[in-house]
């Protein structure tokens, strides 16, 4: 059974220096902003962060990078119009970047959760991003060998959890959440709603409770909830 934390600070309190932390989200959708803020508040440093991006504007992951808490980032798209904190840290040589094609990033996370030791993918073959990597031609097509990405913690956002820890998501906010939940030793989830065990239809659960360690409720802004109900 998962821990149901009463605050985001409590939810992330166990995160130690030098941990590898996966952070869900693509753009703002599915981004566990309150958990990231709590991680910033908690003071852990020397982190390796796995996220699709490298922070935007002056919030969340960007602030973690600004404060030099992130020693290394594994992501697919660090450079954005508002990624100034990453850009500054990178140019100063104060953050290590491992750039991974987005689908390879997703598959490496999935592989970690699925107990796959490594895999060959055609993505990136013959490009800069496969330099120095093992390659293999399979059925006439070049492939690159890629390895799983495990994490100590995953911070993700879902829409609703039951008290057993089963999760459902909303629309494209699903993105990296389900796979990150499988790849981390401890998965910490912020949700808009917590319902009784048995209130979620077993057919529609996206993340089974086995992958969830800590849940914290962070109510969504009212308009989104209203929209959601209209859409149901």
């Amino acid at each position: 059974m998962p821990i149901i934390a009463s605050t985001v600070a409590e939810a992330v309190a166990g995160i130690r220096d030098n941990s590898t932390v996966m952070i869900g989200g693509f753009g703002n959708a599915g981004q566990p902003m309150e958990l990231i803020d709590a991680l910033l508040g908690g003071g852990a440093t020397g982190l390796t962060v796995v996220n699709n991006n490298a922070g935007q504007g002056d919030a969340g992951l960007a602030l973690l990078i600004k404060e030099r808490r992130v020693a290394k980032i594994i992501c697919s798209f660090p450079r954005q119009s508002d990624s100034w904190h990453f850009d500054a840290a990178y140019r100063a040589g104060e953050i290590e970047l491992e750039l991974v094609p987005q689908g390879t990033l997703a598959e490496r996370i999935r592989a970690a959760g699925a107990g796959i030791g490594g895999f060959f993918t055609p993505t990136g073959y013959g490009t800069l991003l496969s330099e120095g990597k093992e390659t293999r031609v399979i059925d006439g097509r070049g492939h690159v060998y890629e390895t799983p990405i495990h994490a100590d913690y995953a911070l993700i956002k879902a829409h609703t959890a039951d008290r057993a820890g089963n999760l459902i998501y909303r629309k494209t906010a699903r993105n990296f959440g389900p796979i990150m939940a499988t790849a981390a030793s401890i998965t910490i989830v912020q949700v808009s709603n917590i319902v009784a065990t048995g209130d979620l239809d077993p057919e529609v659960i996206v993340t089974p409770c086995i992958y969830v360690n800590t849940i914290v409720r962070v109510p969504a802004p009212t308009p989104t909830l209203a929209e959601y109900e209209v859409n149901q």
Partner: protein
Amino acid sequence: MNRLPSTSPEPGARPGPEARLNREDLARLVAADIKSGSYVNLGIGQPTLVSNYLRPEQAVTLHTENGMLGMGPEAHGADIDEDLINAGKVPVTELPGASYFHHADSFAMMRGGHLDVCVLGAFQVSATGDLANWHTGAPDAIPAVGGAMDLATGAKDVYVMMNLFAKDGTAKLVPTCTYPLTGVGCVTRIYTPEAVFLLTEDGIRVRETFGITLAGLQGRVKVELLPPLALRKVARTAN
């Protein structure tokens, strides 16, 4: 193969093949060429314009790599939902028959060759279909790749939409890419304001030209161009 209805008489129709195409006409041409019932991913930037010209009767289903099939048009006003965005992080809508899935499933769909077409922008395309569109290679550039390599590698057909000529006048269709590659031998068609190129086993074949002759085109492009099939037939008759 679908052809642009270039002789269609409707008002506001694009200029005939005597002029280079503008961005909208190029997008309209790509849209008309997409086979009915296709599953399609439109890259960020110019390729996104293609969606404006897809006709409902084409029944094209759009994929966005952040986990959705059946993506609808951009959302406005009260329809904006921060949980529903496309790969460019623009709020979009959902069409009947849509489905959501996580990132690994979404990229499995791409990598597994299930999308019929993706349309991408490019810095350069080589004579053998190599694509460069993610990185200038400049020493001070911060690289970012996103889903570009996955799209280039995975779709059955990779259509590139780009200007044929860079600002300095040099062609972006090149013998060998000088920019870092996104994918090797992956491009199947190139749509430009001056011409449509088909990358075939025989080489690069010009399908049609706009506002330029084949000879004029060959004069500005440093890769050997094969003539349109219809022209070649004429040439054979003349022999």
